């Protein structure tokens, strides 16, 4: 009870300081550039960046790029999650399989994804699928490990109790193992979503004709630091908005937790 009331008291205070920190950093940045302590060529300035974003929004160029980045991220999330959950479940139920493949999984997970990007471009072309594939390689492992953990960690007593109540193997999976794994899966949704966007943007950055990654890479090609920062800002804001949505979804899905 004490915790809950603390949280309600703190919320406006936190919000105030969150805004204050942002304003302070932007103001300092703006001032340092106008005082010529920092060179606008290298770091641009907040007012230019804001103008650029406004310009993208009014001319409408932003929406197409944003839509394709979001589309790739979402596809990557769905496909990566589906594969990761399925395999995590399977391995979680079969200790032999898990031990046999353990070193291979670890090896694959250790590969830096940037190294894979050119290969995916070669295999899946310049369109969205090479980006989706890159997002999948990131999301897959997060989901795989959480699901595996969730299945292995399912409470022994819950399993025994449900078996005593008459559950078949299939009912055991449905009523205990899946919900138990879901709590782990939901808790990693936030991370997975971030990874999906990283995958998509890195993919676009390394070779594409659309998306926020493409916008940033184009700007970098012409030493347009304002464009680079504007691209990063849009990306950052999108992640914050989407993850706020995920947090609410997570809270609802895990509402049974104390």
């Amino acid at each position, binding site marked *: 009870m004490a915790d809950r009331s603390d949280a309600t008291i703190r919320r406006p205070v936190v919000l105030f300081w969150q805004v204050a920190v942002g304003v302070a950093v932007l103001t300092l940045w703006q001032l340092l550039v106008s005082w010529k302590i920092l060179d606008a060529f290298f770091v641009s300035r907040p007012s230019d960046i804001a103008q650029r974003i406004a310009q993208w929004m009014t001319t409408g160029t932003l929406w197409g790029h944003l839509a394709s980045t979001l589309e790739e991220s979402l596809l990557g999330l769905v496909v990566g999650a589906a594969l990761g959950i399925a395999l995590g479940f399977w391995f979680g139920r079969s200790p032999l399989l898990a031990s046999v493949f353990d070193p291979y999984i670890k090896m694959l997970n250790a590969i830096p994804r940037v190294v894979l990007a050119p290969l995916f471009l070669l295999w899946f072309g310049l369109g969205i699928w090479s980006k989706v594939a890159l997002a999948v390689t990131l999301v897959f492992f997060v989901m795989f490990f959480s699901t595996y953990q969730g299945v292995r960690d399912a409470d022994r007593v*819950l399993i025994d109790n449900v078996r005593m109540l008459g559950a078949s193997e299939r009912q055991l999976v449905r*009523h205990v193992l899946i919900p138990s794994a879901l709590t782990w899966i939901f808790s990693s949704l936030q991370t997975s979503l971030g990874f999906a966007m990283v995958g998509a943007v890195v993919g676009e950055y390394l070779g594409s004709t659309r998306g926020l990654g493409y916008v940033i890479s184009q700007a970098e090609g012409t030493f347009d630091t304002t464009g680079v920062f504007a691209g990063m800002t849009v990306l950052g804001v999108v992640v914050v908005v989407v993850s706020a949505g995920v947090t609410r979804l997570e809270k609802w899905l895990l509402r*049974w937790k104390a």
Partner: protein
Amino acid sequence: MIAIELDRVSRDFTTPDGRSYRALDEVSLSVEEGSFVAIVGPSGCGKSTLLNMAAGLLTPSSGVVRINGEPLSGINHRATYMFQQDALLPWKTVRENVALGLILRGVAKADALRRADAWLSRVDLSAFGSHYPSQLSGGMRKRVVMAQNWIIDRGILLMDEPFSALDVHTRQRMEIELLGLWEGSGRKTVVFVTHDLEEAIALADEVVVLSAGPATHIVARHQVTLDRPRALMELRTAPAFIDLYGAIWAVLREEVIKSQQAVGHGRS
């Protein structure tokens, strides 16, 4: 009729360092249908192991478990099991938890939930049907578990120190509630494991005393001839109760001392 029969049942475990450990050694025990048997013994003596074998959650290393005369293989579907730990599914509401056994059996959900509501009112939890277990107190959760077990109406109730985590008063209330349900529902066969001799005498028709481990065996069986229904609040000060307690404790005491000495030796 004999509801549960353990016929020279032994159980070995492999310790982490690879040695074999005999938890139970040739235990034979028969429990009459409709009787309430309490099993007491020092901690770590294999009380839960014995119960788990009657439940079919563990298979004996040797010997046979018979339920209503038939050898048991796999889960014992004539019994319910009340665990020491929390066994309610935390992601299901209270009424969904109570209805679970019926739903697993294929009863239509609406019907199962309606019957769950009836059981919830029997354990005084009507107002909490749509709560989640984490929102209830320990005693309330135990009552939900009782409803969950009773609703599927099996003939045998296995209970493994179900109330040991509760405070003294809540515990007494649960004992009263348990006896009330038991006496009011055609006297199922109960095997109740506890380390608390008072609880054992207060509830049961017969108290079985197990020896200290390893190689646990039965050292004594005492009939509890106290009248039913029992007034649990007053029972513990009644002379008959105190006599019985003294007699059984004389046996149990030896085993508790042995088990403490064994632990002491293990540590030194």
